[in-house]
């Protein structure tokens, strides 16, 4: 099967005559230059992604009183764990961590499952109204959140789920399912046509085909989409703020915005604690990615071998 795919694409690539250019390209000096340039690029990306994060780390370990002094200290002069202690001691934040995890996990699992089924149909079965469905689903997520907020609030109160995590899980569906469906559909479409026919020839039922042939092949896409869905639910703010009332139902973004430095000032923005909270919240996500990124590669090689 892969041979036919390769054969189709082969015709598109013109063979070139061996030239001095190719000979030059193979020289060790050129290869060294390319290697240095490549690693410079890697370093550049590293710095680009991380330098604001360094600012977060630096500020999280700086005591509140040292945050806004000039000249700016890039390395904290009196590093402290005070901010972390405050954040972790706050019952609200602990509950918020749990709430956010529950909501994000539920939304991700539901959205991936429903998305996988839907994308299989939309990506691999030709039927009338397929494009229309795709655009319909997309269109439901296009309205600005503020526009649908009032109506959603009414719905939430009528169903008596106001101030509950169920309300969040439900409303996040509008935001997350169209994304999962679209991403997974594009990957389903990218798989070769004849996969199902080959499976049917071997006597597999439609479900078995889906479960054992298709799904493993789009595993990298599933992991990617899962991560995107999780992060999107984790960081969502407006609905989380509007549909919860008491602090025990807050999610992490809402909890972060309700920190104060405890000095009676409604204006004060507790940067130290916010930064500490950000670290506490972002580091596990990164760690999770470090683990999962092996899954992405593993899924791919399994698929290619099957051919």
């Amino acid at each position, binding site marked *: 099967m892969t041979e036919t795919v390769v054969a189709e694409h082969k015709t598109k690539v013109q063979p070139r005559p061996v030239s001095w250019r190719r000979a030059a390209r193979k020289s060790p000096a050129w290869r060294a230059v390319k290697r240095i340039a490549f690693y410079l690029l890697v370093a550049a990306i590293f710095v680009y992604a991380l330098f604001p994060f360094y600012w977060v780390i630096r500020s999280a370990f700086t005591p509140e*009183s040292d945050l*806004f*002094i*000039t000249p700016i200290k890039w390395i904290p002069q009196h590093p402290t764990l005070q901010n*972390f*202690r*405050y954040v*972790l*001691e*706050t*019952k*609200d934040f*602990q509950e918020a961590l749990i709430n956010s995890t529950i909501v994000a996990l539920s939304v991700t699992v539901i959205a991936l499952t429903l998305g996988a089924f839907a994308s299989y149909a939309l990506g691999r079965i030709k039927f009338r109204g397929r494009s229309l469905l795709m655009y319909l689903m997309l269109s439901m997520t296009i309205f600005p959140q503020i526009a649908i907020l*009032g109506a959603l*609030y*009414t719905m939430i*109160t009528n169903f008596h789920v106001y101030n509950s995590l169920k309300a969040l899980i439900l409303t996040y569906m509008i935001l997350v399912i169209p994304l999962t469906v679209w991403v997974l559909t594009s990957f389903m479409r990218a798989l070769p046509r004849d996969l199902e026919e080959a499976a049917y020839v071997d006597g597999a039922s439609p479900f078995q085909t889906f479960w054992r042939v298709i799904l493993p092949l789009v595993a990298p896409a599933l992991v990617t989409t899962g991560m995107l869905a999780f992060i999107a639910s984790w960081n969502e703010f407006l609905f989380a*703020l*509007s549909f919860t*009332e*008491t*602090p025990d139902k807050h999610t992490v973004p809402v909890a972060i*915005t*309700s*920190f*104060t*430095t*405890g*000095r*009676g*000032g*409604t*204006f*004060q*923005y507790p940067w130290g604690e916010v930064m500490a909270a950000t670290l*506490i919240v972002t*580091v*596990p996500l990164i*760690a*999770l990615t*470090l*683990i999962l990124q*092996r899954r992405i590669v593993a899924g791919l090689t399994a698929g290619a071998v099957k051919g």
Partner: protein
Amino acid sequence: MKHRAVLVLAGLSCALAVAIALTVAAAGSAGTAEPSSPAAVKPPPVLGANAIKAKYGGQSITFVGDAAVGNSHVRDQNLVAQFSKQTGIKVKLVPHPSSGTDAYQQLARNFSSHSSSIDVMMLDVIWPGAFAPYLVNLKPALGQQAKLHAAGIVLNDTVNGKLVAMPWFGDFGILYYRKDLLKKYGYSSPPTTWAQLGAMSKKIQDGEKASNPNFYGFVYQGNSYEGLTCDSLEWLASSGGGQFIDGGKVTINNPKAAAILNLQRSWVGNIVPQAVTTYQEEDARNAFDSGNAAFMRNWPYAYSASKGTPVDGKFGVTTLPHSGKSPSVGTVGGWQLGISKYSKHVGAATEFVRWMTGPAVERYDAIFNSNVPTIPAVATIPAVVKTNPYLIPSIAKVTRVTRPARYLGTHYAQGSQAIYQGINQILNGKSAQSVLPGIATQLNQLVKK
């Protein structure tokens, strides 16, 4: 490689677990932040508690109080506990969202759905006009007590003859100045007119800029938001420019207003940082507290917030400057208490509000949480002045001005937006004469509605 990743995750989870375990163990005793003021102050007793208990004991009311975390929340919790204990009325405390707009929306949604789930609520000083149709008239029950409070604020809370809210605590704008820099450059006292402020700022800034290129003379709240309405009201009212809307008529487009606004515009980029058009309260405070400004306009909260910063002990407070014959003024910020007309326990709620806005609780608030009392008599109590040094008579007696919420009612937010958007444009370079007519037109349309 696979194992390494697992080890990393295990290590991280262990670290996090240990951290949480340690802090949870300590959490029992620690609680939330320590109060910044003497914990010796206790909530006062409820006058006539027994009579109240006999009449309303056993009822439950819901009070939407200050934001969820911090000393203000502790204050609310202490007060609510005391009242419940003494009168048998169960008060449920629900903190409001920390953002003003969100808090407004929460109440608005509650009112428009005619819900009876909220009985008493904290109202920002600019909301009584908007929520008046949904609030109980407190004049019969509390009109006498209202006489104790500052007249300007009570006037603000009276809409169409109904007293829809009782003042609870009220900030006003003041001028912070660097005592040490004034001395260094030969000034014996802080400026009393805007022109003096400009001259002093220039001299001090020129002197300091050599050693500190980020030093500026004057900082305030110039972002395109409600705070700019507060600041600009002070500029106009203290220079004969009116108060945006006076006696129901839109007066913002007048020559004196244009003059003071153009003066402020000329300062931006010179003695005022260009970034001031993005400054809110904290930005101005950070600039002043880090030693990068000579003068600052801010609310009283900045006084105690500046403790422990590089300018601690080096600054003083006074009233804002004025021009010509107009008095020095301070815009009122602050909170009132109101009762929803959909409440099922108006009687019990009224007793709660009566106690909360009485002199005893205002004294408690002032000492425990540094809230500025709205009862002038309370502001003269020595213990209160000790905790809040900006309440010395010379400052506490400053003329209070309020934003035109009464005249704009439910359209206040829109009117204020017209004001602060326009003035922000002036600060960014447009001449006042080109912007003020537009603001006046918009305000005129809204006052008519």
